């Protein structure tokens, strides 16, 4: 798949020499990345490698110290998170930021915000714009809940759900944005192996439907089996961007994960 992408197409999401410094700490240092339409793009690296910081810069939550970010050929560096979201870049959060005291259905309805336009006056007078918006929002949200398999929880307060299910609510909410790219920050964290597996299948089925997905994940099985390209970060720096096979065979990646030095066999000799 990656070969096809290389044929001179513009990447969907591109980072050029992105840096983020917090005082003296170089959280992300000079990282380039290209995600093409149709990819499932994995970002991996040990804890504290700067993955989430990097994500936050792509979505406008952080402003990069240096470097540029392009979406579909347009520069989005310096834009606020809400402006970035209006370009149909959706994301989920590592530490679960769902609306706990809203029902699952309402959570997803917020995701339809940018696709609707009705204002205060429309709401008070129940104008046609309001009715159309509400119909669209409800239908769209129910469709997404159905798709992700949360229909039975539609009227449950999101905060009352189990951790794994809350993660799905967050993905459902992001899907309501009709994202051109979906950025998932550790979607499988807190899920049991069975849930992780079905999440993986779900993400693959989304990808088959044409969604472009970027995912930060620690679960190697998940990453190696579902991503077609992977970016490896360590201490804020890019080690490698390549296919799962390239990543697996790269000595630097191995040392980042397992450390340097002699393997058990060598030590004996």
């Amino acid at each position, binding site marked *: 798949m990656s070969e096809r992408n290389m044929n001179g197409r513009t990447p969907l999401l591109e980072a050029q020499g992105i840096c983020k410094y917090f005082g003296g700490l170089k959280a992300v240092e000079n990282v380039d990345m290209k995600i093409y339409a149709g990819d499932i793009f994995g970002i991996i690296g040990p804890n504290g490698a700067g993955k989430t910081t990097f994500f936050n810069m792509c979505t406008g939550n952080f402003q990069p110290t240096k470097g540029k970010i392009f979406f579909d050929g347009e520069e989005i560096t310096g834009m606020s*998170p*809400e402006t970035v979201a209006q370009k149909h870049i959706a994301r989920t959060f590592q530490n679960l930021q769902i*609306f706990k005291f809203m029902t699952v259905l309402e959570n997803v309805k*917020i995701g339809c915000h940018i696709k609707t336009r009705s204002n*205060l006056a429309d709401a008070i007078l129940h104008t046609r714009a309001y009715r159309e918006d509400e119909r669209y*929002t409800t239908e769209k949200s129910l469709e997404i809940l159905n798709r992700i*398999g949360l229909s039975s929880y539609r009227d449950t*307060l999101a*905060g009352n759900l189990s951790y794994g299910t809350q993660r799905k609510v967050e993905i459902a909410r992001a899907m309501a944005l009709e994202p051109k790219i979906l950025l998932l920050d550790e979607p499988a964290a807190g899920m049991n192996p069975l849930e992780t597996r079905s999440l993986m299948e*779900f993400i693959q089925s989304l990808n088959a439907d044409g969604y472009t997905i970027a995912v930060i994940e620690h679960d190697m099985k998940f990453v190696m089996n579902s991503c077609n390209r992977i970016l490896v970060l360590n201490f804020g720096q890019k080690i490698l961007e390549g296919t799962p096979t390239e990543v697996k065979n790269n000595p630097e990646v191995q040392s980042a994960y397992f450390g340097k030095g002699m393997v058990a066999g060598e030590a004996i000799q």
Partner: protein
Amino acid sequence: MNKIAAVVNRYRALFLVLVFAVLCALPFVIPKALYVRYACNILMFTTLAGSLNAINGYSGQTCLGQAGFFAIGAYTCAIFSTRFGLDFWLLLPIAGVLAALVGLIVSLPTLKLQGIYLSIVTLGASEIIRIIAQTWTPVTGGALGIKNIPYPWLFGLDTFRPKYYYFIFLIIGVVFLFVTNRVLRSRVGRAWISIREDQIAAKSLGVQTSFYKSLNFMYGAFWAGVIGCAYAPFVNYIEASQFSTDTGFNVLAMIVIGGQGTLVGPIVGSVIVTVLTESLRFLENWRYVIYALIIILMMWLRPQGIAGASHSMLAGGKIKRKPIRKGGAQEHV
């Protein structure tokens, strides 16, 4: 409790009509004019507490300065009706709009602030408004206040009698609840609630939080202004000390006791606090100690307020879950 709620939901329209009929009959049933005055107070505070609840309970911004917006409305009515003879019903929306504009001005510098810092700014703004009212003698009458505010027209009824003025508060209260209910069930209301729940997540979904926070502030200030405008002719005489921060905290106590984030909460709160205020008058200033005790007890025993969401996590209520059908919904994940 749940059974009552179920019955109410089932016959919702009938229930509302019944409540409305009872409320209409109330001033004619109540024997003493003084008690009708209390009923008027309750209705007035219902809207005022409701307007504060629209800010604190729905967008999660902690406003402590509702007395300021209330004062703007009251002075608008008093000044324009005594000096220019403008009609009460015309002044009602004007007072609301003026209060909303002040709300906008207050909200602009506070957009970057949260929690306690925002609260302090609103508290300060409320005090500034009161001090202006107290010192700007040529316009506001200063410490002497403004008296003889004309009574509004209401189908030729003698609105100087609380019995009939009651209906002005009732109309405003009903319109407020109707409109607010509609707003909350819309895109705008959902945006407010999403800001209350998690601002960062709301932003990531494209909600322009600054715009909606300002709008929310203006909405709450608007209704405080409207009810302030209705308050001025009711008491016939206003001066700055009626709009001190005590009034603001009184209203805050109502929504804390009644429950924030529900439409019923402020109603319950205003009934309880007003009844207590009037029935504990014999204790003089000691009644404030009783308020304090009640608020502490509420925080301790039922932090979401009496009418707070009963199936919320804080209430430890049961989780509403429908059984999952086999092979049905759970296909994908």
